[in-house]
């Protein structure tokens, strides 16, 4: 097998991002899963890295609007005062 490097801790690390993002081929995924079934340290690294990204997403609220005062200063600076109200949101 040519891609056997993924059976090592070092090899797994190099593909960690692609693995977590679901961008790794089935065969490489299988190798990684085999490795983490046997290597507790790597299992923890994969789990906690995935969790880290989940937390970043969860703590980042994309619905946050622009503060009103920031918006009105922005519109003034851009000479768009006449479009200031009503907000189109």
């Amino acid at each position, binding site marked *: 097998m040519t891609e056997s490097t993924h059976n090592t801790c070092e090899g797994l690390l190099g593909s960690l991002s692609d693995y977590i993002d679901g961008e790794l081929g089935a065969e490489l995924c299988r190798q990684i899963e085999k490795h983490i079934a046997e290597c507790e340290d790597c299992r923890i690294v994969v*789990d*906690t890295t995935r969790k*880290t990204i989940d937390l970043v997403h969860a703590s980042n609220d994309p619905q946050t609007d622009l503060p009103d005062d920031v918006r009105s200063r922005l519109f003034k600076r851009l000479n*768009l005062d006449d479009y200031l109200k009503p907000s189109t949101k």
Partner: protein
Amino acid sequence: MVETTIKDISIEALRNGDRAEFAQMVDAYSAPIYRLSLRMLGSEQDAEDVLQNTFLSALTHLSNFEGRSSVLTWLYRIAVNEALMILRRGKPEVNIDDHDSSGEHDDIRPTQFVDWGALPEDELLSVEGRQALDHAIQNLPENLRMVFLLRDIQDLSIKDTAEALNLSEANVKVRLLRARLMLREQLSYYYGERMKKEKSND
């Protein structure tokens, strides 16, 4: 993503000086640009400067928009450059184009193996937990933080992140991996301490 929920902005109309269209664009994209700027700079005043300069610059450089990326990605690119200008004030060494000195994983090899992933969500996302996370993100080196913010916080693809930062996709991937592992490492220290404390309280 924000992009999919708003109507398409007509570049043609913008180039023709359609102010209503420009106002639309500002309302559609100012929030994500402002959030990104806050994360990049950590100061509301600086973030507001970047926000204003980004749209001013977009207006004067409309002819440079090639349509290879979305309008938002293009705006991110302008915002990143505006933010870098602020970061470089008095700190000439800030340079995200720097090629990383090694392709080795030596500096990112994990050292913390605390299994904190199974902690309950409300504990992971407590006020204190969020602060630790924000702090960890702020602590990332500039060249990694920019990649991380665009990819994992603004949710850009690898390709769009590369486009916005003028980096190769391979370079973006290397930096993203480093950033994620550095964050993981910092959070492992933090939650490791919390788990120890809890144990001793039992």
